[in-house]
Protein backbone atom coordinates (compact mmCIF):
# COMPACT_ATOMS: atom_id res chain seq x y z
CA UNK A 1 0.00 0.00 0.00
CA UNK A 2 1.36 3.36 -0.93
CA UNK A 3 0.47 6.41 1.02
CA UNK A 4 0.17 9.84 -0.38
CA UNK A 5 1.38 11.84 2.57
CA UNK A 6 0.09 15.15 1.35
CA UNK A 7 -3.53 13.98 1.26
CA UNK A 8 -3.38 11.78 4.36
CA UNK A 9 -2.23 14.68 6.48
CA UNK A 10 -4.86 17.06 5.31
CA UNK A 11 -7.50 14.38 5.73
CA UNK A 12 -6.59 14.01 9.39
CA UNK A 13 -6.64 17.76 9.79
CA UNK A 14 -10.08 18.06 8.21
CA UNK A 15 -11.54 15.29 10.32
CA UNK A 16 -10.13 16.61 13.56
CA UNK A 17 -11.23 20.14 12.83
CA UNK A 18 -14.72 18.94 11.95
CA UNK A 19 -14.93 16.84 15.11
CA UNK A 20 -13.67 19.54 17.43
CA UNK A 21 -14.74 22.92 16.11
CA UNK A 22 -14.50 24.51 19.56
CA UNK A 23 -10.84 23.53 20.12
CA UNK A 24 -8.35 26.09 18.86
CA UNK A 25 -6.02 24.11 16.59
CA UNK A 26 -2.97 25.61 14.95
CA UNK A 27 -1.86 23.31 12.16
CA UNK A 28 1.48 23.39 10.41
CA UNK A 29 3.63 21.07 8.32
CA UNK A 30 7.35 20.52 8.60
CA UNK A 31 9.09 18.12 6.21
CA UNK A 32 5.85 16.34 5.47
CA UNK A 33 5.02 15.96 9.15
CA UNK A 34 1.71 17.25 10.41
CA UNK A 35 1.88 19.22 13.63
CA UNK A 36 -0.90 20.73 15.66
CA UNK A 37 -0.84 23.00 18.70
CA UNK A 38 -3.82 22.86 21.03
CA UNK A 39 -4.48 24.63 24.35
CA UNK A 40 -3.47 22.69 27.45
CA UNK A 41 -6.97 22.90 28.89
CA UNK A 42 -8.39 20.95 25.95
CA UNK A 43 -5.54 18.51 25.37
CA UNK A 44 -7.27 15.46 26.83
CA UNK A 45 -10.40 16.02 24.78
CA UNK A 46 -8.27 16.45 21.68
CA UNK A 47 -6.20 13.31 22.30
CA UNK A 48 -9.34 11.23 22.82
CA UNK A 49 -10.69 12.38 19.48
CA UNK A 50 -7.31 11.66 17.88
CA UNK A 51 -7.62 8.08 19.00
CA UNK A 52 -11.33 7.52 18.41
CA UNK A 53 -11.98 9.54 15.26
CA UNK A 54 -8.62 9.87 13.51
CA UNK A 55 -7.45 6.36 14.38
CA UNK A 56 -4.19 7.22 16.16
CA UNK A 57 -4.01 4.08 18.22
CA UNK A 58 -0.46 4.43 19.50
CA UNK A 59 1.35 7.06 21.53
CA UNK A 60 4.90 6.54 20.34
CA UNK A 61 6.45 9.22 22.49
CA UNK A 62 5.58 11.87 25.00
CA UNK A 63 8.24 14.38 25.82
CA UNK A 64 8.78 17.96 26.82
CA UNK A 65 10.97 20.89 25.79
CA UNK A 66 12.05 23.70 28.07
CA UNK A 67 11.96 26.87 26.00
CA UNK A 68 13.54 29.07 28.66
CA UNK A 69 15.62 31.89 27.12
CA UNK A 70 15.00 30.51 23.65
CA UNK A 71 14.79 33.14 20.99
CA UNK A 72 11.26 33.94 20.00
CA UNK A 73 9.70 31.65 22.56
CA UNK A 74 6.68 32.95 24.43
CA UNK A 75 5.88 30.00 26.67
CA UNK A 76 8.06 28.06 29.06
CA UNK A 77 7.33 24.38 28.43
CA UNK A 78 6.28 22.62 25.27
CA UNK A 79 4.67 19.23 25.77
CA UNK A 80 4.97 17.02 22.69
CA UNK A 81 2.79 13.98 21.97
CA UNK A 82 3.92 11.85 19.01
CA UNK A 83 1.01 9.80 17.71
CA UNK A 84 1.00 6.94 15.24
CA UNK A 85 -1.83 5.28 13.41
CA UNK A 86 -0.56 1.75 13.00
CA UNK A 87 -3.09 0.81 10.29
CA UNK A 88 -2.72 3.89 8.12
CA UNK A 89 0.94 4.50 8.90
CA UNK A 90 0.35 8.17 9.56
CA UNK A 91 1.93 10.19 12.29
CA UNK A 92 0.83 13.31 14.08
CA UNK A 93 2.67 15.60 16.47
CA UNK A 94 0.42 17.22 19.04
CA UNK A 95 1.90 20.05 21.06
CA UNK A 96 0.69 22.10 23.95
CA UNK A 97 2.31 24.93 25.89
CA UNK A 98 2.53 25.19 29.65
CA UNK A 99 3.64 28.00 31.90
CA UNK A 100 4.44 28.50 35.55
CA UNK A 101 2.74 28.20 37.93
CA UNK A 102 0.15 26.02 36.28
CA UNK A 103 2.21 23.00 35.16
CA UNK A 104 -0.66 20.56 35.32
CA UNK A 105 -2.24 18.63 32.48
CA UNK A 106 -4.63 15.70 32.65
CA UNK A 107 -2.98 12.33 32.19
CA UNK A 108 -3.08 10.59 28.82
CA UNK A 109 -2.99 7.15 30.43
CA UNK A 110 -6.76 6.91 30.10
CA UNK A 111 -6.34 7.32 26.33
CA UNK A 112 -3.18 5.25 25.81
CA UNK A 113 -1.93 3.34 28.81
CA UNK A 114 1.55 3.46 27.30
CA UNK A 115 1.74 7.02 28.52
CA UNK A 116 2.38 5.69 32.03
CA UNK A 117 6.18 5.74 32.11
CA UNK A 118 6.46 8.54 29.56
CA UNK A 119 4.53 10.86 31.83
CA UNK A 120 6.53 9.81 34.85
CA UNK A 121 9.74 10.57 32.97
CA UNK A 122 8.48 13.99 31.91
CA UNK A 123 7.58 14.68 35.55
CA UNK A 124 10.99 13.43 36.63
CA UNK A 125 12.91 15.69 34.30
CA UNK A 126 10.67 18.74 33.92
CA UNK A 127 8.22 18.71 36.83
CA UNK A 128 5.08 18.64 34.72
CA UNK A 129 2.27 17.19 36.83
CA UNK A 130 -0.11 14.75 35.13
CA UNK A 131 -3.38 14.73 36.99
CA UNK A 132 -5.13 11.39 37.37
CA UNK A 133 -2.05 9.26 36.66
CA UNK A 134 -2.45 5.84 38.33
CA UNK A 135 1.09 5.68 39.79
CA UNK A 136 2.51 9.15 39.82
CA UNK A 137 6.10 9.26 41.08
CA UNK A 138 9.60 9.73 39.76
CA UNK A 139 10.75 7.18 37.18
CA UNK A 140 14.55 7.46 36.88
CA UNK A 141 15.86 9.64 39.68
CA UNK A 142 15.69 8.70 43.35
CA UNK A 143 12.54 9.66 45.21
CA UNK A 144 14.46 12.07 47.45
CA UNK A 145 15.44 14.20 44.46
CA UNK A 146 13.77 17.59 44.66
CA UNK A 147 14.88 19.28 41.43
CA UNK A 148 13.91 18.71 37.82
CA UNK A 149 17.26 18.38 36.07
CA UNK A 150 16.33 18.88 32.43
CA UNK A 151 15.01 22.36 33.13
CA UNK A 152 17.30 24.93 31.61
CA UNK A 153 17.75 26.79 34.89
CA UNK A 154 19.13 23.69 36.61
CA UNK A 155 22.95 23.67 36.67
CA UNK A 156 24.61 20.80 34.85
CA UNK A 157 26.65 19.83 37.90
CA UNK A 158 23.53 19.80 40.02
CA UNK A 159 22.96 21.33 43.40
CA UNK A 160 25.05 18.97 45.48
CA UNK A 161 22.87 15.89 45.09
CA UNK A 162 25.83 13.82 43.91
CA UNK A 163 27.72 14.63 47.13
CA UNK A 164 24.98 13.94 49.58
CA UNK A 165 26.05 10.52 50.86
CA UNK A 166 27.56 9.15 54.06
CA UNK A 167 31.33 8.66 53.98
CA UNK A 168 32.53 5.17 54.91
CA UNK A 169 36.02 5.23 56.38
CA UNK A 170 38.21 2.13 56.24
CA UNK A 171 38.19 1.56 59.98
CA UNK A 172 34.40 1.58 60.08
CA UNK A 173 33.79 -0.79 57.21
Amino acid at each position, binding site marked *: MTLDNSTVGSDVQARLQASLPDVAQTWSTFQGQERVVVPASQILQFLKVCRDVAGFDQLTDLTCVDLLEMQGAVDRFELVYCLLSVDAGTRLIVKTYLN*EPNLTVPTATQVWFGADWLEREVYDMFGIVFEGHPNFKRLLLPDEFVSFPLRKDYPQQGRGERHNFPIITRSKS
Partner: protein
Amino acid sequence: MASEVKKQLGDNIFLTTLDAAASWARSNSLWPMPFATACCGIELMSTAASRHDLSRFGSEVMRFSPRQCDLMIVAGRVAMKMLPVLQRIWLQMPEPKWCISMGACACSGGVFDTYAVVQGIDRFMPVDVYIPGCPPRPEQLIKAIVDLQEMIKAGGTYDAREFALRDTAEGPARFDEDELIRIRERNGLKLESPKYDPVH
Protein backbone atom coordinates in the same frame (compact mmCIF):
# COMPACT_ATOMS: atom_id res chain seq x y z
CA MET B 1 72.98 -31.62 68.14
CA ALA B 2 72.26 -28.66 65.91
CA SER B 3 73.74 -30.38 62.93
CA GLU B 4 71.71 -33.46 63.77
CA VAL B 5 68.47 -31.40 63.71
CA LYS B 6 69.48 -29.79 60.50
CA LYS B 7 70.25 -33.14 59.03
CA GLN B 8 66.85 -34.45 60.05
CA LEU B 9 64.73 -31.47 59.01
CA GLY B 10 66.75 -29.97 56.22
CA ASP B 11 65.02 -27.02 54.55
CA ASN B 12 61.59 -28.01 55.81
CA ILE B 13 61.40 -25.41 58.56
CA PHE B 14 61.60 -21.69 58.22
CA LEU B 15 60.79 -18.89 60.61
CA THR B 16 58.55 -15.96 59.79
CA THR B 17 55.97 -13.73 61.44
CA LEU B 18 52.31 -14.51 61.60
CA ASP B 19 51.59 -11.25 59.80
CA ALA B 20 53.84 -12.13 56.90
CA ALA B 21 52.46 -15.63 56.58
CA ALA B 22 48.85 -14.44 56.62
CA SER B 23 49.57 -11.63 54.17
CA TRP B 24 51.42 -13.98 51.84
CA ALA B 25 48.48 -16.35 51.79
CA ARG B 26 45.90 -13.61 51.35
CA SER B 27 47.76 -11.72 48.67
CA ASN B 28 48.02 -14.79 46.48
CA SER B 29 44.36 -15.67 46.64
CA LEU B 30 42.41 -12.48 46.15
CA TRP B 31 38.79 -13.15 45.26
CA PRO B 32 37.53 -10.20 43.24
CA MET B 33 34.00 -8.88 43.42
CA PRO B 34 33.41 -7.42 39.95
CA PHE B 35 31.35 -4.28 40.39
CA ALA B 36 31.27 -3.51 36.68
CA THR B 37 28.89 -0.76 35.62
CA ALA B 38 30.34 0.38 32.30
CA CYS B 39 32.94 -0.24 29.60
CA CYS B 40 35.69 -0.86 32.18
CA GLY B 41 33.77 -4.02 32.96
CA ILE B 42 34.52 -5.28 29.47
CA GLU B 43 38.24 -4.84 30.11
CA LEU B 44 37.75 -6.56 33.45
CA MET B 45 36.19 -9.55 31.68
CA SER B 46 38.98 -9.50 29.16
CA THR B 47 41.52 -9.54 31.97
CA ALA B 48 39.96 -12.66 33.39
CA ALA B 49 39.65 -14.31 29.98
CA SER B 50 42.22 -16.58 28.41
CA ARG B 51 44.32 -14.02 26.58
CA HIS B 52 45.36 -12.01 29.64
CA ASP B 53 44.54 -14.72 32.15
CA LEU B 54 44.26 -13.16 35.58
CA SER B 55 44.58 -16.60 37.16
CA ARG B 56 48.33 -16.39 36.59
CA PHE B 57 48.27 -14.00 39.55
CA GLY B 58 45.96 -16.00 41.74
CA SER B 59 42.93 -13.77 41.67
CA GLU B 60 40.73 -15.25 38.99
CA VAL B 61 38.00 -16.53 41.29
CA MET B 62 35.35 -13.90 40.65
CA ARG B 63 32.28 -14.36 42.78
CA PHE B 64 29.09 -12.42 42.35
CA SER B 65 28.27 -12.53 46.02
CA PRO B 66 30.06 -9.98 48.21
CA ARG B 67 30.05 -12.48 51.06
CA GLN B 68 32.57 -14.61 49.20
CA CYS B 69 34.92 -11.87 48.03
CA ASP B 70 37.72 -9.82 49.47
CA LEU B 71 38.63 -7.54 46.58
CA MET B 72 36.13 -5.03 45.26
CA ILE B 73 36.89 -3.91 41.70
CA VAL B 74 34.75 -0.90 40.86
CA ALA B 75 34.86 -0.77 37.08
CA GLY B 76 32.85 2.05 35.59
CA ARG B 77 30.96 5.15 36.49
CA VAL B 78 28.86 5.17 39.62
CA ALA B 79 25.64 7.13 39.43
CA MET B 80 24.23 8.78 42.51
CA LYS B 81 21.50 6.18 42.56
CA MET B 82 24.09 3.39 42.46
CA LEU B 83 26.39 4.65 45.22
CA PRO B 84 24.22 3.45 48.14
CA VAL B 85 24.21 0.02 46.46
CA LEU B 86 27.99 0.10 46.12
CA GLN B 87 28.44 1.08 49.76
CA ARG B 88 26.10 -1.64 50.88
CA ILE B 89 27.95 -4.29 48.88
CA TRP B 90 31.24 -3.04 50.29
CA LEU B 91 29.90 -3.34 53.83
CA GLN B 92 28.70 -6.88 53.10
CA MET B 93 32.18 -8.08 52.18
CA PRO B 94 34.04 -9.89 54.96
CA GLU B 95 37.32 -8.58 56.38
CA PRO B 96 40.05 -8.29 55.33
CA LYS B 97 39.06 -6.62 52.07
CA TRP B 98 40.54 -4.24 49.56
CA CYS B 99 39.21 -2.00 46.84
CA ILE B 100 40.47 -1.17 43.37
CA SER B 101 38.99 1.85 41.66
CA MET B 102 39.29 1.04 37.96
CA GLY B 103 39.16 3.69 35.28
CA ALA B 104 38.71 7.43 35.13
CA CYS B 105 35.02 7.36 36.02
CA ALA B 106 35.33 5.37 39.21
CA CYS B 107 38.35 7.45 40.24
CA SER B 108 37.07 10.92 39.45
CA GLY B 109 33.78 10.83 37.58
CA GLY B 110 35.65 11.00 34.28
CA VAL B 111 33.95 12.98 31.57
CA PHE B 112 30.61 12.67 33.36
CA ASP B 113 30.73 15.90 35.32
CA THR B 114 26.98 15.96 35.78
CA TYR B 115 24.47 16.06 38.60
CA ALA B 116 23.84 12.32 38.44
CA VAL B 117 27.37 10.89 38.56
CA VAL B 118 29.49 10.55 41.69
CA GLN B 119 32.80 12.34 41.19
CA GLY B 120 35.04 9.53 42.39
CA ILE B 121 34.07 6.70 44.70
CA ASP B 122 36.90 7.55 47.08
CA ARG B 123 34.81 10.44 48.33
CA PHE B 124 32.50 7.98 50.02
CA MET B 125 34.40 4.72 50.50
CA PRO B 126 38.02 3.62 50.97
CA VAL B 127 40.12 2.82 47.90
CA ASP B 128 43.48 1.04 47.94
CA VAL B 129 44.61 1.16 44.31
CA TYR B 130 43.56 3.52 41.55
CA ILE B 131 43.84 2.65 37.87
CA PRO B 132 43.85 5.52 35.38
CA GLY B 133 42.63 5.06 31.83
CA CYS B 134 39.45 5.22 29.88
CA PRO B 135 39.11 2.28 29.93
CA PRO B 136 42.42 0.89 31.28
CA ARG B 137 44.13 -1.94 29.45
CA PRO B 138 43.96 -5.40 31.03
CA GLU B 139 47.69 -5.09 31.70
CA GLN B 140 46.97 -2.09 33.87
CA LEU B 141 44.47 -4.04 35.92
CA ILE B 142 46.98 -6.87 36.28
CA LYS B 143 49.58 -4.32 37.40
CA ALA B 144 47.14 -2.94 39.94
CA ILE B 145 46.49 -6.40 41.34
CA VAL B 146 50.22 -7.12 41.50
CA ASP B 147 50.72 -3.78 43.25
CA LEU B 148 47.97 -4.64 45.67
CA GLN B 149 49.62 -7.98 46.35
CA GLU B 150 52.88 -6.18 47.07
CA MET B 151 50.99 -3.78 49.32
CA ILE B 152 49.37 -6.59 51.27
CA LYS B 153 52.67 -8.44 51.60
CA ALA B 154 54.45 -5.31 52.80
CA GLY B 155 51.88 -3.96 55.23
CA GLY B 156 49.33 -6.66 55.94
CA THR B 157 48.65 -8.01 59.39
CA TYR B 158 46.96 -11.25 60.37
CA ASP B 159 44.21 -9.48 62.29
CA ALA B 160 43.95 -6.54 59.85
CA ARG B 161 45.21 -4.00 62.37
CA GLU B 162 46.38 -1.67 59.63
CA PHE B 163 42.79 -0.96 58.61
CA ALA B 164 41.89 0.36 62.05
CA LEU B 165 44.40 3.17 61.57
CA ARG B 166 42.58 4.46 58.51
CA ASP B 167 39.83 6.21 60.40
CA THR B 168 39.54 9.41 58.35
CA ALA B 169 38.01 9.99 54.95
CA GLU B 170 40.69 9.42 52.34
CA GLY B 171 39.12 10.97 49.28
CA PRO B 172 38.84 14.63 48.38
CA ALA B 173 36.61 16.79 50.51
CA ARG B 174 33.00 17.33 49.67
CA PHE B 175 32.84 19.30 46.47
CA ASP B 176 31.46 22.75 47.06
CA GLU B 177 29.18 23.70 44.24
CA ASP B 178 29.89 27.38 44.87
CA GLU B 179 33.49 26.52 44.06
CA LEU B 180 32.52 26.35 40.40
CA ILE B 181 31.27 29.90 40.54
CA ARG B 182 34.45 31.07 42.26
CA ILE B 183 36.63 29.30 39.70
CA ARG B 184 34.78 30.95 36.86
CA GLU B 185 35.00 34.36 38.54
CA ARG B 186 38.72 33.88 39.11
CA ASN B 187 39.16 33.07 35.44
CA GLY B 188 37.20 36.13 34.43
CA LEU B 189 34.26 34.15 33.12
CA LYS B 190 30.96 35.50 34.24
CA LEU B 191 28.49 32.94 35.41
CA GLU B 192 25.14 34.13 34.33
CA SER B 193 22.57 33.65 36.99
CA PRO B 194 19.48 31.72 35.99
CA LYS B 195 16.73 34.06 35.03
CA TYR B 196 14.06 31.79 36.25
CA ASP B 197 14.28 29.38 39.15
CA PRO B 198 10.94 28.37 40.59
CA VAL B 199 12.16 25.45 42.68
CA HIS B 200 15.09 26.99 44.53
